[in-house]
């Protein structure tokens, strides 16, 4: 599959994308179950955006993952690795059988996304709050190269508690980085509990707007809204743009939805069976 032109031939229909997302959800739950560990909740909340980006927008080459002029996708919430591996494998960066080795010794599918191990991963994450800064460096480089390549970053909403995110937000606006686009996966849950119980974020869109970012809010599970948001981001040329995507942690698996205990836990055999029935 070549994605040079930004997606496959012609724009895939929303129904096709939803079908890809469903397959990725099955892969996410399966690989976490097989590994006996991992982070299904934040992968399931992010996957619709990942599918939209990889299938319709990102200029990347699965057969040449280090192509220097590729668009960058920086998964800053690196625990959403099952989501990344599912879409990268779907996109042809590596065989689906690699997913079975997730978290195992020597696997290309490390516990947290790692550019040194996995074709198609642009950023080694796992420590929250660092990805946006890395994206700024990539955006500076694209500007120096006079390249039109775009840098996309995905942040979690719990991750916004890290001070470095706001150092980065300030500098991206100061440097008017119009080639930097951010998704915030606003799934309202972090490791220990709901975000509002751990550390209230108050008005997240207003915070970004106060940092002089262009801001838009969407339903992060509505494929049509996601595609429109990507188009909107691409049209923002004065500075950085952020889409606050309201999502449901664990989306698609009833017992994982809105359930803090599935931030970082694997389903049992029975739960796997139920999840697979629901993800049809």
């Amino acid at each position, binding site marked *: 599959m070549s994605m040079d032109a930004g997606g496959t031939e012609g724009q895939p229909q929303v129904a096709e994308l939803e079908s890809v997302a469903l397959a990725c959800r099955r892969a996410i739950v399966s690989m976490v179950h097989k590994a006996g560990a991992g982070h299904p909740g934040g992968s399931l909340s992010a996957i619709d955006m990942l599918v939209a980006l990889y299938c319709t927008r990102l200029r990347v080459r699965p057969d040449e993952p280090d192509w*220097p002029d590729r668009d960058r996708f920086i998964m800053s919430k690196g625990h959403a690795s099952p989501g990344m591996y599912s879409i990268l494998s779907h996109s042809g960066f590596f065989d689906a059988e690699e997913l079975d080795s997730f978290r195992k010794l020597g696997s290309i599918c490390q516990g947290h996304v*790692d*550019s*040194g191990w996995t074709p198609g991963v*642009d*950023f*080694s994450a*796992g*420590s929250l*709050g*660092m*990805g946006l*800064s*890395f*994206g*700024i*460096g*990539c*955006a*500076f*480089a*694209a500007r*120096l*190269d006079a390249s039109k390549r775009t840098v996309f970053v995905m942040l979690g909403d719990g991750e916004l508690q890290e*001070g*470095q995110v706001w*150092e*980065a937000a*300030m*500098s991206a606006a*100061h*440097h008017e980085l119009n080639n930097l686009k951010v998704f915030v996966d606003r799934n309202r849950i972090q490791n220990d509990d709901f975000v509002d119980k751990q550390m209230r974020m108050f008005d997240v869109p207003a915070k970004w707007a106060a940092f002089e970012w262009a801001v838009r809010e969407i339903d992060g599970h509505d494929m049509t809204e996601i595609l429109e948001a990507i188009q909107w981001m691409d049209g923002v040329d004065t500075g950085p743009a952020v889409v606050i995507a309201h999502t449901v942690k664990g989306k698609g698996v009833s017992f994982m939805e809105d359930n803090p205990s599935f931030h970082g836990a694997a389903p049992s055999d029975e739960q796997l069976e139920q999840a697979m029935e629901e993800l049809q």
Partner: protein
Amino acid sequence: MTALVASRDGYGEGLMQLADDERVVVLEADLGKSTKSCRFREMYPERTFSLGISEQNMMLVAAGLASSGYKPFASTFAIFTERGFEQVRNGIARPNHAVHLCGSHGGLHTGTDGSSAQSIEDLAIYRTLPNMTVMHPCDDISTERLTVLLSALSGPSYMRTARNKRPRIHDEESVAALRIGKGHVLREGSDVALLACGVLVGEAMTAAEVLSSDGIEVTVVDMHTIKPLDSALVQRLAADCGALVTAEDHSIIGGLGGAVAELLAANCPVPLERVGVNDTFGESGDGDELLEKYGLNSDYIIAAARRAIARKA
């Protein structure tokens, strides 16, 4: 009369030497005037990125540039690089991005700013990171040369420079011979070897003069690279001299003294005395006053050398 120079000026000059390489970019966190990257900024503003007072952000911005094929040189005070230590660990060293950090104002010799500005642990903490090269040159022209050599490294580095002026150690000929990872022998003698870095190289040379006048023959090495340690040289000197002294404006824990102690203990135990900051914080004062008060100047190196020699079997 020997010229009085500050090693941080060599960093600024080194960046200027590298400027013809368009992949070289410079990052600052509001202290470019102090670290001396300001000279590059004035000439090449399009390749200089000001990040404001945000060291953690700067580390990852540098990593992003490196991942895109650029050669980032990022600087701030040594102590403030430490604020981004985990960023250096996870965002730079772990993915092995060739980001070159320069921490200026290292050590007690930084002086009147006081203990908050006097990093005495930077060499130790960066030395623990896989992939990292760790350096602390002793004067302006060696810093300039080593900065230029850094641009050919394929992995990350940390280089500490010093704020205040001291007598220049090197000349054109000795600078041309410098290699990252290789200690530079400044004088040879068979009774004891003094391994020093940074401002204490000059103190070690003074100590050697005094000891020599007492009939003690001393080797002095500019150990500008702490990691990778020049283990072949250290082991040769252990064999030839039978007693070693390390000297650094840094904690005696984990820096040059720690690295040499680890090597000797595992390979060729000989008497070792470590001159350094003895597990305490500094204070405000003139740089030379602080070297005296905290036991780092040539008098203390002389005493350490005599102790090491006395301990020989």
